[in-house]
């Protein structure tokens, strides 16, 4: 019940916003934030009630719907889904509470936000393949309108590019889902059945094609190089909070999907291609970091670091899938690391994009070279950006390190060379973030920034919560690792 509450409450909230046309901006925002927080609360309750020693999927609910085709309303979570979903809900609360210019249409803006939250949580919570696909696609609709209506620059073009590109990925995904559905007798969309029975184990070309379609679909969403070019443009033109959601939540659907579908349902096939996937991830790590280093636009630079960080996640998943490696501890470490990376990246990049939004609200400019010396004028903004930047470059004591350390340690045990080359990524990330901090905050203050104001309380309050999360995961990640380890142990257990 609790999981249904978590995703349906924001949907009802969105409907309410659409139904009451007289609500003022402040009221709409307060309502949306409260509804989003309620959904977060439901997930926290689910977390508290999760038994790490219990079965893989917990809080399961099932409701007959269309039995003739094996479709049913099924929800349930394992530790991985629960961790990512809770992080997503937190990002939504932060993004909704963050002040933004709604261009005179606050109700519509917050309604779309809540709609997007409902759909996103649905992706992480359902256990039915067809519903998974439906939620997966409906998130595109929400994000399309958020970018297109409240973006800047050329928002319509970016929104269209984002929609079409990722929709192409979704179509591949649909084909693969039908392939999976047909491979099992009796036909079923039930994820638990598919995970348990591994219907495509050892069936050559058919399994290969289904795997390829799944991975391509998720690789576009993640995104992996070279399928990433929709991302920077969508980010640059999206409003700050929408960017935070795009990077913090929507990208996770790609890697979460990889874990839930190909990794769990086609273990043998994935194992066959794990090195290939690992190499692609390595390319994403290095390429994303280097291209980010070459960007002079604040938001594009952060957008490309997302590609780098999602590369770590995919690397962890690829390593965890190498069932032939016979090093279960290393594979489990890699999978846990990949999941922590998802949570950490969501919080860190969410915070960074919200900060970008603050820059845009003040100056309407993302060019790094137009800034400088802000540390004196905006100490709070400087402090939060430094913290988020260091978290993103993997500084110990902050969330990113816990993830990356586990990914690298696990990777080295299986594919030593991928780990040795992959760690270069954290050096380049360090260079690009130190350069970013230097160009924004240090040196002399240009004259046109004389009136640059520091963060307002609503802004630093939100950033403070996210930073606290980053710090807590970095210092005492036990609560998170216990939850994730419970599921990753079962998943790599080679059932």
């Amino acid at each position, binding site marked *: 019940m609790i999981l249904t509450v978590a995703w349906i409450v924001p949907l009802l909230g969105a409907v309410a916003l659409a139904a009451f046309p007289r609500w003022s901006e402040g009221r709409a925002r307060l309502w949306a934030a409260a509804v989003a927080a309620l959904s977060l609360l439901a997930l926290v309750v689910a977390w508290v009630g999760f038994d790490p020693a219990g079965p893989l999927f917990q809080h399961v609910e099932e409701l007959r719907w269309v039995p003739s085709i094996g479709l049913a309303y099924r929800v349930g979570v394992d530790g991985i889904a629960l961790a990512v979903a809770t992080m997503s809900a937190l990002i939504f609360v932060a993004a909704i509470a963050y002040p933004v210019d709604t261009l005179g249409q606050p109700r519509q803006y917050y309604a779309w936000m809540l709609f997007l939250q409902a759909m996103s949580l649905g992706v992480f919570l359902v256990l039915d393949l067809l519903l998974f696909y439906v939620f997966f696609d409906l998130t595109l609709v929400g994000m399309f309108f958020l970018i297109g209506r409240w973006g800047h620059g050329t928002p319509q073009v970016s929104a269209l590019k984002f929609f079409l590109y990722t929709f192409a990925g979704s179509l591949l995904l649909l084909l693969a889902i039908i392939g999976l559905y047909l491979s099992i007798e009796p036909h079923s969309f039930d994820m638990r059945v598919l995970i348990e029975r591994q219907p495509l184990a050892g069936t050559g070309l058919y399994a290969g094609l289904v795997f390829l379609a799944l991975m391509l679909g998720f690789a576009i969403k993640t995104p992996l*190089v070279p399928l990433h*070019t929709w991302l920077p443009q969508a980010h640059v033109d999206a409003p700050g909070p929408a960017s935070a959601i795009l990077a913090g939540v929507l990208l996770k659907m790609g890697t979460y999907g990889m874990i839930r579908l190909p990794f769990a349902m086609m273990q043998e096939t994935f194992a066959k291609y794990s090195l290939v996937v690992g190499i692609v991830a390595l390319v994403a790590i290095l390429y994303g970091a280097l291209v*980010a280093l070459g960007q002079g636009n604040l938001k594009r630079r952060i957008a490309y670091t997302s590609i780098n960080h999602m590369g770590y996640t995919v690397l962890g998943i690829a390593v965890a899938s190498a069932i032939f490696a016979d090093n279960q501890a290393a594979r489990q470490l890699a999978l846990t690391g990949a999941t922590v990376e998802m949570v950490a990246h969501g919080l860190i990049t969410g915070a960074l994009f919200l900060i970008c939004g603050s820059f845009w609200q003040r100056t309407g400019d993302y060019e790094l070279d137009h800034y400088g010396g802000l540390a004196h004028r905006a100490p709070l903004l400087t402090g939060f950006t430094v913290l988020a930047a260091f978290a993103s470059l993997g500084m110990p004591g902050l969330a990113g390190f816990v993830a990356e350390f586990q990914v690298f340690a696990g990777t080295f045990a299986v594919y*030593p060379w991928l780990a040795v080359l992959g*760690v270069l990524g*954290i050096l380049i990330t360090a260079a690009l973030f130190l350069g970013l901090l230097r160009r924004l905050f240090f040196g002399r203050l240009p004259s046109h920034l004389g009136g640059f104001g520091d963060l307002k309380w609503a802004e630093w309050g939100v950033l403070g919560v996210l930073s606290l999360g980053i710090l807590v995961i970095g210092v005492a*990640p036990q609560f998170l690792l216990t939850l994730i380890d419970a599921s990753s142990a079962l998943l790599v257990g080679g059932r």
Partner: protein
Amino acid sequence: MLWTLVLLPLLGAPLLYLGGRRLGRFGLTLAASLVVLATLVLAGLAITSGWQGSVAWSETLALTLKLSTAGSVFALTIPLVALLIVVYAGYHELAPRTGYRRRDRQGARLLGLLLAFVGAMQMLVLANDFLTLLIAWELVGACSWALISHKWGQKEVPKEAAQAFLVTRFGDLGLYIAAAAVFAGSGGFGYADLATLDGGLLSIAVAGILLAAAAKSAQVPFSSWLFAAMAGPVPVSALLHSATMVAAGIYLLARLQPTLSAVDWFAPLVISLGLATALIGGVVGMFQNHAKKLLAASTSAQYGLMWVAVGAGFPGVALLHFVAHAFLKAGLFLSAGLAERQIGSYQLHDMRLGRRLPGVALAAGVLSLALAGMIPFGAAWSKEQIAAAAGQQAVWLALLVALAGGLSALYATRFQLLAYGRPLPRERSRLPQGPRPSRAESGALWLLAIVTLLLSLVWWPEVQAWLAEAWPQRLPQGKLWELIVSLILVVLGIAVGFVMTRRQRRSSTWQERAASWFGLPTVIQTIARGTVIFGHSLARFDDRVVDAGLRGTARFARWLARRNAQQGEAFSEGVPGVVTRLSEWGGHWARQAQSGQTHHYYTGISLGLAVILAILVIGALL
């Protein structure tokens, strides 16, 4: 319980920063030094009562702290040196309270970061597994970045801080790999697990540890980051060079030496790296004219000597030299800071402040003589021990160590005479005089000099006996001739130093090049610039080529749609039309065949029969 030693300064740092803004100079300095003092007391308690600490993150990941011999030496030395430096920093860097309720945010930040630095370093030397070590290792690097960029308003400072951070982080990567290799081989991250490795994994782990240690200890070819670190304020340099950051490298080697030396290339590599750094660093110090950079080069060189000791199999000797060096180098940096206050720069040729600050000059003289390796200072004893340790390997190694000692005597003399010597007869001070050093500043300097003097006691046999009892370490047996050669070289170095500073000389181009690590910084900057340029071109490639595939697909789809609109539509309209016309024509033809004339029908029948016959014949023949 051992965690208190780490957490006290680490938690004290933000508290001091947030709460210390209301405090004046005295209050801030007092609060910071009390925290460091408490850490020192806790370290003493921890050593006497054998504390331990452990926190489990998950089943695989656990953070463990444990006191080792090397760790105890460091855990005591760090807060002791830091205490004096914090007092100095409070009075050297913080402005006195001038107006009512003046907020000194910068000062609170500096002292807070110094505290955090101490805490991170304590964690580093107490760590008992590679995860904890790596956390502390990177935190130390981050603290030093923040401290070096203290004066972020100046254009160059943040760049130099980034350079220092990135060079040392390159070394950190080695530690990531080492930790991963230990996990791959043993399933754990503990130091004890390292000993269970063998073969390739052990080699990889040792190589990673060496890389990390070399980068932190500023050994060749990473030495030049120490020059970049000079952009930080004086107390930061003093702490960085004496007891933290640079010391981390030698700590790690000394701590893990028994395991590391199981790899057969460990000893030769460590000895040759250390010796090369000691000699090259000595030459750099010989020609360097920037006071802090001269001391920085000497730091690299002295740590090089410690590397030789570890490589030769005597980590205890390296620790002794570390302790002696920590106090004297901290003091020398503080004295350099006082000289800078007088003339406004670190140019050695503009100093010669012996007359103006006689007390400081005397203290600096004591420290310089100790750095020179002059008997009877403690540093001289530990240096002779290093020569003896090298002599156990080969005679020529001992001679090279003695030569490095001669070079340190040379640059120490140069530093002392140029910074605090008497002015040349022709020159009268033309620069305006700065404020006289406060009592706290010169007091801190003098205390460091006194500790250095006290360390001379190690020459006394009874102290040596006590030391051997309290702290059982293998010490090399030195030979008398080694000592004599060493002393001759020291005296020679001092003499050359005297000659070199007699006259004001312009340094030639090659001397300037030698003074900046023979162009090593340029190499590193070139690599950095190359990476940035590569990043820019990749970014262009990403925009123009990778995205072009997408744009091309979109264009192709549009073209296809247009073609379809123009030609496809016409085609699909046309096909039914053609079929209609064809059937019309067929109907017309069939109507014509029904003529009603008999001979037409007979012709048709006979033609049909002929065709049937032909088919039958063909069928029979086939």
